[in-house]
C-alpha cells in the first residue's frame, strides 16, 4: 500500500524545485526505509499498526525531509535556480534555434533542387499556398510548440505560474513582430526564402491580436493540466 505521505512528499519536493530524477529516487528510497523501519518493529513483536505509527515518527516529518533536499543546491533544477533566464531567454533562444535550423534546412533543400525547379512550373496558387504554410509553421506552430513545451516543463516542475506565463508572453510578443516569406516559383530563378523583423504603427493592432491568440493557444494545455489537477484534488478531498 502506498502511503499518502509519500505522494505528498513527492509533490512537496517538486514544489521546492528538487529535480524530478532526484525526487523519484528520494521518494523510492525513503519509502523503502520506512518499510524497513516497520519490519524492524514488527520483528520485535510490535503490531503492524503500532509499528507504522512509530515508523512515521522515526522518519520525521515531510517538512524536515524536504528541508534537507532544499539545502542541497546541486539537487535543485537549473530552471529553479535561475527561473528568469530559463523562462524568458531560453524560450526565445529555443524558438530562434528551431526557426533558424528549419530555415537552413529549407534553403539547403531548395538550393539542391535548383536545377529541377528551373524546369518546373509552380502555379501562383501553389506558390501562395507554400508561402502561407511557411508563415503558419514559423509564426504560429513553432512559437506555439516552444511556448507550450516550456509551460509544460514549468508545470511538471511545479514552478510558480507567473514563470510559464512569462515564457509564453515573451515568445508571443517577439513572434508578433516577425515576418516570414517563402516565395517558391518555378523557372529561372526558381525562388527565394526570406524572413524579417519589423514594427509599424499600422500593423500594431494585428500584431497584438497575433500575440494574444498565440499566447492563448500556448496557455491552453497548461490551463487544462492545472484544471485537471484541481479537479483531482477536489475529488480526493
Amino acid at each position, binding site marked *: 500500500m502506498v502511503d499518502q505521505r509519500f505522494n505528498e512528499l513527492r509533490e512537496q519536493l517538486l514544489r521546492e524545485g528538487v529535480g524530478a530524477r*532526484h525526487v523519484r*529516487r*528520494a521518494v*523510492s*528510497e*525513503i519509502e*523503502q*526505509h520506512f*518499510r*524497513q*523501519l516497520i519490519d524492524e518493529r514488527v520483528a520485535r513483536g510490535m503490531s503492524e499498526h503500532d509499528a507504522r505509527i512509530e515508523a512515521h515518527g522515526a*522518519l*520525521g516529518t515531510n517538512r*524536515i*525531509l*524536504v*528541508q*534537507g*533536499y532544499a*539545502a*542541497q543546491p*546541486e*539537487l535543485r533544477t537549473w530552471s529553479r535556480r535561475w527561473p528568469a533566464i530559463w523562462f524568458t531567454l531560453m524560450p526565445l533562444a529555443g524558438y530562434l534555434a528551431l526557426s533558424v535550423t528549419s530555415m537552413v534546412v529549407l534553403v539547403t533543400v531548395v538550393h539542391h533542387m535548383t536545377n529541377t525547379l528551373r524546369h518546373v512550373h509552380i502555379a501562383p496558387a501553389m506558390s501562395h499556398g507554400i508561402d502561407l504554410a511557411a508563415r503558419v509553421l514559423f509564426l504560429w506552430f513553432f512559437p506555439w510548440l516552444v511556448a507550450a513545451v516550456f509551460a509544460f516543463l514549468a508545470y511538471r516542475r511545479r514552478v510558480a505560474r507567473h514563470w510559464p506565463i512569462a515564457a509564453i508572453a515573451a515568445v508571443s510578443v517577439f513572434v508578433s513582430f516577425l515576418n516570414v516569406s517563402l516565395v517558391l516559383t518555378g523557372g529561372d530563378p526558381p525562388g527565394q526564402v526570406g524572413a524579417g523583423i519589423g514594427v509599424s504603427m499600422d500593423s500594431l493592432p494585428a500584431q497584438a491580436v497575433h500575440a494574444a491568440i498565440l499566447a492563448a493557444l500556448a496557455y491552453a494545455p497548461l490551463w487544462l493540466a492545472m484544471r485537471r489537477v484541481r479537479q483531482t484534488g477536489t475529488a480526493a478531498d
Partner: protein
Amino acid sequence: MPTKNPAFMSGVPALIVLRLLSEREMYGYEIARSIKLATHDALSLGEGVLYPALHALESRGLLRARSRRADGRMRIYYSLTARGKRHLARLTEDWRRMSRSVDSLLGGAAHG
C-alpha cells in the same frame, strides 16, 4: 593543502557517510543503522540529512549508486568513487586537524 577554515560541522554527514562506504557498499537504511551501531547511538543521521547528503555526494561524483534486488526488495547501494576516496582523505585530515586544535584549546583552558 588543507583548507584554512573547513566548515567541519556541515561536512560531518559527508565525512561519516564516506567513511562507512569506504569499507563496503551499503544502502540508505544500512548506513543509518551502521552509524548508530558504530557510535553506540551517540550519533544519528536523520533521514532528512542522510538521503539528501547521499544524493548530493553522488551528484558531485563522490559516490556511485546502483540498484540491486535484495530480500525481494529493490535497493540502491552506494559505493565510493576514486574522487570520493580522495575527498574522504581530505575531510579526514581536516577533521583531525580541527579536532587536535579543539583538544589543545580545551586542554589549555583546563590547565589555565
